[in-house]
């Protein structure tokens, strides 16, 4: 079981106790999705894939809503680095997840659909794609791969 708690490609280490307590709260949340909801998420993923493809870039920062953080004034709860032809999928998302079973964070790759699939809030979803200047993109890709 996984739970995304942080952005980017920071090296995983032992989670602070406070982070573990926060993560445990989210790990206990039930995840209910019917086929109609899954259909909408997958069609949304197709749009995001198209946007990434149309960018002509090789790498992007991608964020999504998921956990309701509106009381903190935060829309996006999950972020990662999206890489073209990343592994076995057209665009992968490399991200730091909290492995609930293990009680520690890990780095994972998913496709765009996997990245979008586990939102907490079924009514509305947001995705942000940030395309970097060439030099920054090149540096990020070198680090990410």
């Amino acid at each position, binding site marked *: 079981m996984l739970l995304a708690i942080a952005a980017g490609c920071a090296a995983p280490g032992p989670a602070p106790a406070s982070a573990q307590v926060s993560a445990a709260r989210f790990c206990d949340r039930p995840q209910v999705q019917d086929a109609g909801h899954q*259909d909408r998420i997958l069609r949304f993923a197709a749009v995001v894939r198209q946007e990434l493809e149309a960018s002509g870039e090789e790498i992007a920062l991608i964020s999504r809503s998921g956990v309701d953080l509106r009381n903190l004034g935060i829309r996006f709860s999950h972020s990662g680095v999206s890489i073209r032809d990343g592994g076995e999928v057209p665009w992968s998302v490399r991200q730091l997840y909290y492995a609930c079973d293990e009680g520690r964070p890990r780095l994972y790759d998913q496709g765009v659909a996997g990245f979008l699939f586990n939102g907490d809030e079924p009514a509305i979803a947001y995705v942000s794609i940030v395309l970097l200047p060439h030099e920054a993109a090149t540096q990020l890709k070198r680090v990410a791969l």
Partner: protein
Amino acid sequence: MTTAPFRCTLIALLLVAAGPALAESLATSASSAASSASSAGSASLRGSSDSIKGSSDSSRDGDKQVAEGEYRVVAVAPVDGRSDMLRLTLEPHRTARAATGFTLDLPQHALADRPLAPGDIVSAHHRPYGLEFARGNTRNAFFLVLADDWHRDLQTRVITN
């Protein structure tokens, strides 16, 4: 000094709130964490290569072979050796183009407490990811068949140990 600006795209998806009528397929997972691994194993999702088989001797099976439209359920039977799986045998009822029948294997839980029976109508819709199957009477989706590349999109791969 000049700096190249970054570009940002914001995409929003407004999901119609799922009411009780939509909650007919099984939950993705009985476990609690937001797990993509569990999504890939959802009762209402499946890859095309192990879900759809043509009833004719056509050379290719899978989601691309199924025409959009309505199909009549002509048989519902357990899958041999898989007590948790059902096989629906479907024949064309009203389809957009000439279509042949096929079988659809799905977990029993995908139908929840509203089983399908011979004579019922289901509809098949082409989607970017594969196929959506919905009940003919309510239009509510009950099962999604994913093309293989989309199925891989839902998998999770560990980068570090």
